[in-house]
């Protein structure tokens, strides 16, 4: 078991190292649409579902049903990870509504966060979140934006030891507090980290993604479309013909394939309120994925646009 764990960590580290070799076409050809979690070997679908803004629809039954339809299409397409936070308004309750309506799909990987400045309030908030989802336990709990991270990590690791959660992580967004983030990554036995990464915001490529691979941590990518700004900027522009070589048939797939083809990235979590969009997003994890030369070409193309 321990050897298997070491092997997966070593594989991740080698993959990250290979990514830095210029011209080495090593990356994704033949890679699976799922990526294993090193600490358990469990495979995870490469495109998840974020719920920031899109699932915060309050008690509006029409919009709740639309969210449930998005969840249904997500699971039908093979999606697994749904990510939320107590910060996201009514999103947790809306997820719970969808899960009840769908009969809690077996593939669900439930990821949520703890977000309170009081370490003491953490367990109560986590219990409220669990109750809103209507599930027995979360697969992953993360400290949201490093808020009161020391107290919350103590709680989360204790919960993991007690079998109340399977994985523990931390999150940040928009490049905030990366120095502290790295420091925590070096000192804590995290299973997951969550960061902002997209074809325009690539700061995490420098240190955080290699460090995650080196430490055997899985990476969740938030804001893959810059909260929609990236796709709005690209709308009306023609997708280059060579994008088909990477299997991208839309700008959304172009952006997602760039992200998930990074060897350190486990899953991207775009948010959407549209069924066609969630299908398109999950389909982005299908082969082929860009190799390192293609990734470079994508970056150059975006820079010149």
């Amino acid at each position, binding site marked *: 078991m321990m050897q298997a764990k070491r092997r997966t960590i070593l594989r991740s580290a080698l993959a990250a190292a290979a990514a830095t070799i210029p011209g080495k076409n090593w990356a994704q050809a033949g890679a699976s649409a799922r990526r294993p979690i090193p600490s358990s070997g469990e495979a995870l679908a490469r495109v998840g579902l974020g719920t920031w803004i899109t699932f915060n629809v309050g008690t509006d039954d029409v919009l709740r049903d639309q969210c449930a339809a998005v969840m249904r299409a997500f699971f039908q397409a093979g999606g697994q990870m749904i990510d939320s936070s107590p*910060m996201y*308004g009514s999103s947790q309750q809306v997820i719970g509504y969808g899960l009840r309506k769908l009969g809690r799909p077996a593939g669900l990987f439930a990821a949520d966060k703890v977000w309170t400045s009081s370490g003491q309030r953490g367990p109560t908030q986590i219990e409220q979140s669990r109750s809103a989802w209507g599930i027995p336990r979360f697969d992953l709990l993360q400290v949201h934006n490093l808020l009161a991270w020391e107290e919350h990590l103590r709680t989360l690791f204790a919960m993991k030891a007690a079998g109340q959660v399977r994985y523990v992580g931390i999150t940040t967004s928009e490049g*905030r507090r990366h120095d502290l983030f790295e420091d925590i990554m070096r000192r804590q036995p995290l299973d997951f980290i969550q960061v902002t990464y997209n074809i325009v915001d690539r700061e995490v490529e420098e240190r955080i993604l290699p460090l995650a691979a080196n430490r055997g941590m899985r990476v969740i990518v938030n804001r893959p479309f810059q909260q929609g700004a990236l796709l709005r900027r690209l709308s009306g522009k023609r997708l280059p013909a060579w994008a088909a070589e990477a299997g991208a048939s839309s700008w959304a797939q172009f952006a997602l394939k760039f992200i998930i083809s990074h060897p350190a990235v486990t899953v991207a979590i775009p948010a959407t309120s549209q069924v066609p969009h969630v299908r398109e997003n999950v389909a982005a994890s299908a082969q082929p994925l860009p190799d390192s030369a293609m990734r470079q070409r994508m970056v150059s193309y975006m820079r010149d646009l």
Partner: protein
Amino acid sequence: MRWWSYSPEDFLLFAPRTYWRLIERHNDALWPAQVLALLAGGAILLCLFRPRPGSSQAVSGVLALAWGWVAWSFLWGSYAAINWAAAYVAPVFVLQALLLVGLGRRLCWAFERSTRGLVGLGLFLYALVLHPFAGRILGRSIRTAEVFGIMPDPTAIATLGLVLMASGRGTALLFVVPVAWCVASWATLHTMGAPDAWVPLLAIGLTVGAQMFRHAVKAF
């Protein structure tokens, strides 16, 4: 928390469609309370132009009721479902209602022909009569109409106008909460890309301008 690293977009928790549908559903649930609220606004207008004993108490009482109702019905009962910050704003609206009860009844609420009075009357009439149609003019459903005493924006703008027309000690205190709300509302609407985001800012500008003009005339 490093607040300076956040932009208004980071605090917008909902999609514009969700917000406008929330207002539609709120209006549907309260109908025909909107008619009563408009009649109450008309009664305030009457008190301003034909003051009688008890008029000031009536104006401050109706305003206090409007702030308290918006706090309980909209902020706490509806808006907090998609914006957790609304639960913290609701007590601030209650504070404004209490201020109106405590200070407002001792003020004289009457229209007087001056720059301050005209700006105040203009703001109040806009909030009461025109603001409900602002969304319709911009292409939104009439069901999203924001009515004085039902929704925060026209209530705050109407209050700015009325306080401009009020005289007596403590009027300045009554500006604080409506101005703060107008700033928050501008930030929300602007982040959602609503073309009428400038309306609450303009209301603040006119209020500040009228106040400064008054002080300048006094100094002269």
